[in-house]
């Protein structure tokens, strides 16, 4: 039985404040044969260095860097071990020290965590975090088998070679326990495909209806194709710095007030029931009469742990009130509902209210996945957690329009800015959060960014 001790719940702290100074990324495509992985990473880093109104040149910025973090989910996909070394070389960072981080779907989030640890400790004062995934070398079915290699090879992978099936098991149990209507799940797919329409970076923009989702072919009952994340190729880069370095680089640094990590068993099967870990805003008796196993198959302990630590670390008293913008890891519609509860947007069993109330939409209290998320925009796995934080960063800098609304951004990727483009800049956004998530909840990070 998991019984958390005092030491286990110690709130993390940074010795020095950590800032984000720049963001860059490619567009994301199902297939990207025009560019090598190294080219994609150089393109993303160049955007970070050249297009974020920095006070230093690209060359000056490069000379300020003293440690690098690389983020790639699976060597299988790129068919290149030590790919990070080629990218480090392509970016001209040799002989600086570097590490590559691997925590499945949460690799991006954990890479940012690794970069933050380096800056917060004083080990380094300027750290690029570079993420990518090249998922276009194999057919989609083989890609799904590769991803399912991140399930237990002895007891699970053979049962589907498909993560959608593992989430579908959770979805059926969640629906049994909490009676969430299929329509609510479908709304999340409609929302995120819809927001992707206003992003030049997105791979799967769509104007669809709830009926389209409900009539769509199932991958694994109850999840349809439109409710699953895309498989992408592309790269994303962000740059972290300590306070002095950050203000040398930019007049608009965004503070990373927290980034915290939680984990749980790789096999959903192994999750023994325990007492609900309560978030700062949840009253003591909230789950006194909770009738279901927790976390069971309906909740992610890893996400709850990450949120518990991050909220305490960043001083978040109530996420819906205190946060202005959110990016979740919407790999599947069901995992999004589960996550709303894990991070305390609603109590367990009531996650649907976050969508049904309109709170999670643009114009609502806490708009979620305005980037289009993993369902609408991208899931180039190693880049994903970085892409999410980039989108929050530009929102907090009030620069979302610069990177999404300019017709030239669309032309850059061979696209035309759509007639039904919507300006999704959240006015006066001060604080945002991003969730990076692996497996069926094996690793989760929550990052909280705040305008200075």
């Amino acid at each position, binding site marked *: 039985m998991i019984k958390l001790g005092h030491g286990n719940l110690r709130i993390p702290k940074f010795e020095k404040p950590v800032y984000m100074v720049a963001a860059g990324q490619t567009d994301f495509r199902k297939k990207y*044969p025009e560019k090598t992985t190294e080219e994609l990473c150089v393109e993303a880093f160049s955007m970070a260095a050249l297009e974020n109104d920095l006070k230093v040149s690209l060359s000056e910025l490069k000379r300020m860097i003293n440690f690098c973090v690389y983020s790639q989910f699976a060597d299988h996909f790129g068919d290149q071990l030590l790919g990070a070394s080629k990218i480090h070389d392509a970016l001209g960072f040799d002989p600086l020290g570097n590490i590559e981080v691997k925590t499945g779907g949460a690799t991006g989030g954990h890479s940012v965590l690794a970069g933050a640890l380096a800056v917060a400790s004083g080990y380094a004062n300027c750290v690029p975090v570079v993420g990518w995934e090249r998922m276009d070398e194999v057919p989609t079915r083989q*890609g799904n*088998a590769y991803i399912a290699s991140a399930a237990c090879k002895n*007891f699970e992978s053979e*049962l589907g070679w498909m993560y959608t099936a593992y989430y579908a*098991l*959770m979805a*059926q149990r969640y629906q049994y326990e909490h009676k969430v209507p299929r329509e609510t799940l479908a709304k999340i797919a409609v929302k995120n495909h819809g927001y992707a329409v206003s992003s030049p970076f997105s791979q799967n923009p769509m104007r669809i209806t709830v009926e389209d989702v409900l009539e769509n072919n199932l991958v694994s009952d109850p999840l349809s194709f439109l409710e699953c994340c895309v498989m992408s190729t592309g790269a994303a880069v962000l740059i972290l710095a300590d306070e002095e370095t950050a203000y040398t680089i930019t007049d608009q640094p965004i503070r990373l007030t927290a980034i915290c990590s939680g984990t749980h068993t790789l*096999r*959903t099967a192994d999750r023994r029931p325990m007492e609900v870990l309560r978030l700062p805003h949840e009253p003591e008796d909230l789950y006194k009469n909770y009738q279901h196993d927790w976390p069971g198959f309906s909740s992610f302990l890893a996400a709850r742990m990450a949120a518990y630590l991050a909220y305490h670390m960043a001083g978040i008293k109530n996420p819906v009130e205190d946060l202005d913008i959110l990016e979740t890891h919407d790999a599947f519609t069901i995992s999004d509902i589960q996550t709303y509860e894990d991070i305390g947007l609603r109590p367990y069993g009531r996650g649907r209210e976050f969508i049904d109330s309109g709170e999670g939409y643009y114009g609502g209290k806490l708009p979620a996945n305005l980037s289009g998320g993993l369902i609408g925009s991208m899931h180039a796995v190693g880049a994903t957690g970085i892409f999410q934080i980039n989108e929050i960063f530009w929102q907090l800098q009030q620069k979302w329009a610069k990177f999404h609304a300019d017709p030239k951004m669309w032309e850059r990727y061979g696209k035309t800015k759509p007639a039904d483009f919507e300006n999704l800049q959240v006015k006066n956004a001060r604080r945002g959060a991003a969730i990076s998530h692996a497996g069926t909840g094996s690793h989760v990070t929550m990052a909280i960014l705040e305008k200075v």
Partner: protein
Amino acid sequence: MSIELTHPGCELLSGQPMVIKNVKNYFHIHTYGGLSPFFVGLREGRLLGTRCGNASCEEQRIFLPPRTHCPDCLSPSVWVEAPTVGEIYTHTEILYPGAGFKLTTPCPLISVSLEGVCTKMMSYLKEGQPRIGMKIKAVFNTEHPTHTILDLAWVPA
């Protein structure tokens, strides 16, 4: 003597950008190690789980999938017979599996709840339509074993 190619090379898929098809064909030698008794058990029509070998450990329920060591106290586990009758905790029907799936589709996948077992292993329902709470019993593919977890399945009890 000149050096010659021993391989036909890669197929050219596109000239600009130049894209090639690099075919791979290899195998892995995989060991079940200390978990071997479980897979040997499947060949004998037995469902084996593990229990913590430390009598003072708070967790005395069966783990299935088995574990060589107790995750709580790290004591070596002991092998025990697990119940072969239980119920469906949750289910799905997989229509589009990934490459390498060895069963026919659509295939009902299930998670199994067993009395005295603290975990809910993933498996598949060989016959019938699954529903949560449905009583099921284990069946074993002992005739033409795959030597994988697919040798265990469940049918309505």
